[in-house]
């Protein structure tokens, strides 16, 4: 088998395997159970100390988990369910702080830091090029 043919087969195998993985991830629709869990992880148990209703053994938390499960089963979207709870309990019921108002900065700052770092690194390279020309 020629070297060239081997390279071609290798490339095709790599692409085919990558395609299987990408398709596998793409068609993986989160199951209802996964959605209930991830929603339950975002909603704060109102009678506990900063615990999500998913983890709390408290009666209230259990009841709220049941509501989440019912609404997911009824076909509501994640946003609808989150809205349902924020209407009744206010934004404070969410464990993930909203990307707005007082907690906007919290979400923005990491990206500012990342951008600053990238600029810093790219800066090191650009300054180098004129030196190389000399």
């Amino acid at each position, binding site marked *: 088998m020629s070297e060239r043919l081997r390279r071609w087969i290798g490339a095709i195998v790599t692409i085919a395997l990558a395609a299987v993985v990408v398709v596998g991830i793409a068609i993986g629709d989160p199951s209802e159970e996964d959605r209930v869990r991830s929603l339950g992880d975002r909603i704060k148990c109102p009678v506990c100390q900063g615990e999500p209703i998913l983890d709390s053994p408290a009666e209230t938390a259990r009841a709220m988990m049941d509501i989440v499960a019912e609404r997911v089963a009824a076909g509501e979207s994640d946003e609808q369910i989150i809205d349902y709870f924020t209407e009744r309990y206010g934004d404070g019921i969410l*464990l993930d702080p909203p990307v707005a108002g007082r907690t906007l900065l919290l979400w923005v700052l990491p990206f500012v*830091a990342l951008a600053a770092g990238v600029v810093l690194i790219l800066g090191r390279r650009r300054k180098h090029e004129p030196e190389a020309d000399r």
Partner: protein
Amino acid sequence: MAAVIAGFGLLGVLVAIGGSLMLIVRGFTAAFRREGWDASVFRVPASAVLGGSLLAMVALEVGLLADDFSIAYIANNSASTTPLLYKLSSAWAALEGSLVLWGLVLGVFVFAVWAVMARSRGMDHLGAAALGVMGIVTLFFFALMATVSNPFEVCTATGGFGCAAESALPWSTVVTPAEGLGPNPLLQNHPLMAIHPPMLYVGYVGLTVPFAFAVGALLVKERGDAWLRRTRSWTRVAWMFLTAGIVLGGLWSYEVLGWGGYWAWDPVENASFAPWLVATAFLHSAAVQLRRGVLQAWNYILVIATFSLTILGTFLTRSGVIQSVHSFTQSPIGPALLWFLMFVMVGSLGLFAMRANLVSSAPRLDSLVSREGMFLINNLLLTVFAFVVVVGTLYPIVVEAITGDTVGVGRPFYDRMAVPLGFALVAAMALGPIVPYRAANLRVVWDRLRLPLQIALGAAALAVVVGQRNGWILVSILLGVLVVALAVHQLWDRAYRAAAKRETSTGSEMLRALRADPPYWGGQVGHIGVAVLVLGIALSSNLSDEGAFTLSPGESARFADHEITYVEPFSREKPNRTEIGAVVEVRRGGDLISTLEPRLNRYPTSTQSIASPAVDTGLRGDLYLSLASINETEVRIETFWFPFIWMVWAGGFLVALGAVYPAVARRSARERREPARV
């Protein structure tokens, strides 16, 4: 008479303070004196710091073992019925005592740094300045113990149990309570309590050494990387203990807290994780400077940041500021730590700015597509990660301080930030070690990458074929297998070529390669550990199952391929607590695989029962039972199934082990060179 032990403890603290003062004076004088001294001038202060801190620790432990309740700390944190192990660990179970352990670890490091320094003759100006800096840190912590956080205060009033009022003066009229309060129930529920905090402290405190040498180098205007080279092993050891301490903390949380989790992003965990991230960045960027001379300024900044974060972490967890901004002023230790943090940051950064001329204008990178470039990406990701952790922890405090409102920053915020950052880190970790230094030829990189990438894609594709559709799991498999395959392939490939050239066997060439570059292969062991850890997290969290059952004796329930049978209740009287629990038989496929006893522990000094979960650990996963409630007729049991969770612990310890390998390899290399002399 009663206050003898307290007196000895206090004496130890004072001796250590004297030693620290002497260390500061002698260290800074010697650092700037051209002649007339050697390392022996530090013998007395280093010994005094170690001796004093040891005396304080021994006094505290003796007091605990002897149930000397005339010492307020002991009366409030131990009891005569407390089991031996938890009496010993009570020494660091609360604020004042934990400072004694902190001081002891500092004392050991001061003495060890001096002992290493004393092995070489001559005037070591950098070492002297570093000891002076360590003296300042030591002085601060022992001053805390002598003033605002004194563990040897004697009890002056009691209501019978524990101590109601205390005095710092050992000659006050001492009142000895009849019995102590005992440790916090959560802290006497698992033996890990005895080893997790000390390991964490060795890690935390050990990071003082590279910091002290960095500041020392700036003080005595020493150019170059002597401070880095001399502290390389210290940093690695400290980092290893910090890693192991964090993993043990996760294990403790899993075994004790009963909610099945091991990491909740709570401020106490963050306080240890943020310094770990920056210290990890430092370990990597130090390697670049030692090899290529770049990133000199950055390494100063990282080491200052690492040390500052350890102090910040101590401040956050010791001052009560987490519960509420307003609670931290109740104890003077909060402000003291905050001032010290300011002093450390302003002092070291100011010094760094003044000495900027020392840091050579670094040779620029030849290309970003190079090992150096990959290290920069690693540093960027790790520091941004640390930044996320710090911002998430401080944000609620700052908002509360300014507006008076409370905002919650919980797990979803961290998860959403940490998962992409973590995946990016693992990808960088896979590619970094195969990219050549200077300017990488992409052809070379692709040749090294091709086969491992095919293996990793094959593994992920196989997972898809057998039905796995969860994106997190598939990406974790892809990246995790890639890291492992690249490391193994790299080793095999090098050895294979070398064996062909030198006509030896591939196996012996592999061993030779492992010995030739211990830091590199130690790093690869650590990377494989991270890959295993990430896989463990992805599998155990995404494929977990949970349930809750109410059962009467003899009844069974089916859960995650197991049959769980409640046999009978039990009740046991232990000296320090009452245990009430359920005997539960677990069967799989009809075979009895284990008998578990999830229980509730009741302590006389606490109204709340502490759940003590029972876990059946196996290769396929853990069956985790937590008792929610129990009465004469029935029990309520919460059940969890965590597949492959052992990979989380195994991966974590492998990461720590990666830092051990260079030290072990170097020692065995030395022994080969010079056969043991008798």
